[in-house]
């Protein structure tokens, strides 16, 4: 083992794996999104607190949106703007979408990552990114 590698190992052990990797890389990139989308969407559709907002939507189109959302929440490349978030959820806000529903989605997101064995500190970072969209989603 070279000195360089052992130093990296030491760093990983002391401060957690790959300090320079982005959140998205640490989570596993697009493969992680692919793994998460099934679990996350199934949780959302099974959650009676929020599944009425998904009644009658086209599942394939919705799955693509879920993927884009997860990519963003995982710190990956995206081109969401606050304005998109407002526009995309305006009809749901009219139907009564509020903080409790937003909380439920964040909870499902955390549950998904937990199921995939993601470390708590990374889950917290994902939750923080999701949290940053709250006011736009709820149009405030």
């Amino acid at each position, binding site marked *: 083992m070279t000195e360089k590698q052992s130093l990296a190992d030491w760093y990983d052990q002391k401060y957690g794996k790959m300090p320079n990797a982005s959140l998205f890389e640490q989570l596993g990139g697009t493969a992680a999104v692919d793994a998460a*989308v*099934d679990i996350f*969407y*199934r949780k959302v*559709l*099974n959650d009676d607190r929020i599944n009425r907002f998904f009644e009658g939507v*086209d*599942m*394939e189109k919705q*799955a693509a949106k879920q993927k884009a959302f997860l990519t963003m929440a995982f710190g990956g490349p995206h081109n969401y703007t606050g304005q998109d978030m407002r526009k995309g959820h305006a009809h749901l806000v009219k139907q009564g979408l509020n903080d409790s529903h937003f909380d439920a989605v964040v909870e499902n997101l955390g549950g998904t990552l937990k199921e995939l064995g993601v470390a708590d500190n990374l889950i917290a970072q994902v939750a923080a990114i999701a949290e940053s969209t709250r006011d736009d989603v709820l149009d405030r």
Partner: protein
Amino acid sequence: MTTISYGKQSFELGEGQSVLECLTKQGVPVPYSCRSGVCQTCMMQATAGIPPASSQIGLKESLRLRNYFLACLCHPTEDLEAAMPDDMHVSVRAIVHKLELLNDEIMLVELECLTPVDYRAGQFINLVHDSAHVRSYSIASVPNLDKHIQLHVRRLPQGRVSGWIHEDLALGHTVEIRGPTGDCFYIPGKPDQPMLLIGTGSGLAPLYGILRDALDQAHAGPIRLYHGSREQHGLYLIDELRELESRYPNFSYFPCLSDVHVPAGFIAGRVNEAALRDNPNLKGWQVFLCGHPEMVKATRKKTFLAGASMQDIHADAFNVSHL
């Protein structure tokens, strides 16, 4: 403002309007069906201007390079001159080789292609009646087992193309087909994966192809086919499917009837409900759904919630066109 030219006329594209919406609103008879980029019946060619890449999704490379595009997905930012597809590029001629009623309303149409067509059972082709009327039909034949392409065409009330097929088409006639396209087909490589096939009416066509393709490729996992209709005469290929069932121990056939009176040997109830009742845990399953769009939509969700992975659920819901 973006301008769309067709023939000698020019039209201004409205805000958020697709080329298809713009042209059909102006009375240009562009054929269309799904309006969501799947069926490819609204394919056109840009003879001037470059169509956006997003309107070429799913098209063959050779067609993309010739600036073909799907009018329903086309929201150009520059002016386009659009034309109907050139038959030479997109169509294959085929001879009607066999016509046979499979039940009261479904006709088996066998087509002998004049140039070889590379397809997979379960994909679909577009059959051209005339430049304004093109319809998608799923392929029931298997390249490895059948000499010709087979379609199951249900006669729709006032159906222009299905009426033509049922009444006017005769053996030896030449027709034009486009395609094939679609990604609802058997994927080899996971021979032990259980497969659930659910279809209504002529939605059996792609499932029959997928089933025979899977069996021919020695699929070893269980394959369960649920075919539903209201009454017994709405089902077809019953004997053929029972024969396959007795020949292949891993294949089971469940004919379902939603009518009140159900004769012996058939399952009472709706096909999707029966399939989910018998198979409540679909984790790791491959699911194929074909037929009535509402059934497909509802069952897609139910099979997903029953554990099937999104990428393992394949569907071929044709929107019935009312042109």
